[in-house]
């Protein structure tokens, strides 16, 4: 199955990946092969078969509504690239264009 550049760029954008131009050909080829492989599944007749979303067949795995503190703030922030001891800090997010 042929994947065009536009589709590749769209998928990359949705995953927030920057693709270098020299990577494009290889990725187009890889994606095409993956789709070919998945295409194989279409050969199976699935008429009347409900989609399988969960493997175990288990249902109603619920927890009682009890609060429990498992980590403190220091631990929560520990792995953040940037933080001030209270907040995670990320690059400025803009909101509105008026």
């Amino acid at each position: 199955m042929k994947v065009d550049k536009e589709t590749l760029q769209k998928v990359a954008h949705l995953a927030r990946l920057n693709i270098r131009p020299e990577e494009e050909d290889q990725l187009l080829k890889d994606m095409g092969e993956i789709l070919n492989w998945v295409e194989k599944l279409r050969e199976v007749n699935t008429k009347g078969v409900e989609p399988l979303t969960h493997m175990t067949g288990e249902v109603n795995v619920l927890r009682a509504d009890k609060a429990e503190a498992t980590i403190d703030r220091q631990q929560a922030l520990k792995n953040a690239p940037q933080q001030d001891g209270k907040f995670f800090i990320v690059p400025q997010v803009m909101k509105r264009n008026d």
Partner: protein
Amino acid sequence: MLDVLKKLEEEGYEATIGLEVHVQLNTVSKIFSADANHETEEANTHVSVISLGHPGTLPVLNAQAVEKAVLMGLACGSQISRYNTFDRKSYFYPDLPKGYQTTQDKTPICIGGKIPLFGTNLLQEQVELHHIHLEEDAGKSIHDEEAGTLIDLNRAGTPLIEIVTNPSVAGPDEAAACLQEIRRMVRYLGIGNANMEKGELRCDANISIKKKGDSLLGEKVEIKNMNSFSHVRKAAIFELERQLALKLAGEPVVVETRTFDPATGQTYGMRFKETMNDYRYFPCPDLPPVVLDDQYLAGLQPRANENPRVYRQRLTQKYQLSDYDLGILTEEKETAQYFEALCQQGVEPKSAANWMNGPLRSLLNEEGKNLSEIAIGTQQLAELIKLVEEDKLVYQTAVQQLLPKLPKATKSPLKLAEELNLLVSEDKAELEAIVREVLISLPKETEAFRKGKKKLLGLFIGEVMKKSRGKANPKVVQQELLKALN
């Protein structure tokens, strides 16, 4: 009808409005993890590896979140989905640590149903629902000019229901009324606090206009995140006017997301591009399906019946209240229950309504308390009202001197009135003496009255009441005065 709706009609257009209402559920813990689900000043303290979205963690669904969502659905008359799954809605935003929101796309827990509207001059009696689904809230972003954007994930994983109406809300007033009823319902059912200022109830509105008779809807504009009834109403009015002006000028309405600025009363376009909304929903494999059966639903039905519509119907049928009284008395369940309890103690419904909406409300406002905090039992208040109605206590005396003493009183109103010497005096001789005294102290007025200035009677009554320290029965005072004057 609102001006903007008239204008639309004159130009041959009609409005299409749909609402998406997010309600935070007041569970103790979060929807998929045990971290506390309540407000705190301290950022990032109510978090866990699950709400922080760490790899390899497994969410487990909170049973109470399911129950509260079902209660809302039953109260709206929705069909409850017997088989529920969760889906992942993928998008990137810094306050969504997993890169996806766990929500219900394929199997919303409630399907259909309606929100009854209550108010005057509304164009519809109810708003039909498309569905209600369960999902998790995101964290909060604080935009700081210098430091960048600060992220607090205390709110991440707070259970939400999203109530989605059909695009059949008739106008801005109906949109506000629908939101108001949702808040009442949430509070009656006890499934959330629905404090709009705190963002516990938030509303998005989808607004478009189309030529009358067109089968296709017009270009949709979504106004995000409004947190008051009046903002929703004003934003809808502004947006309908804006879209009509564009159409009449032959310009296109751009499909986009906008925000409402309460300061200017206008809506503004946001930077998000619609093409980015490719959420790639797929079933969340981490959360096994939830199967609900008849027995479970039947068990919740009685609690779902504790909703404002049921109370309004019962109070109307049983007590023939005016719409005004009904509105105030059913705004909160505690008030409605208090009213019913007063009536059960033998107080006339009209009288109970007057006392509750008058003196009792003033007292609550003064003390800054609500009914459950003020600690005036319905038995106490019923006895006080009876004392007044049996002319044993003067109304003003009861309201001004006795009512404020009832909270935490260990004695009955009658005992209190006796102790404070407030009961209407049956002592005729004492009253006659006061009447004589008052008339002597006001010789000019007495003469004027006798010459025909009958309006002065009120002044005399007031003086006598004052001298009797509120203990005289106003009707008897009037009789005695007339006797003395004529």
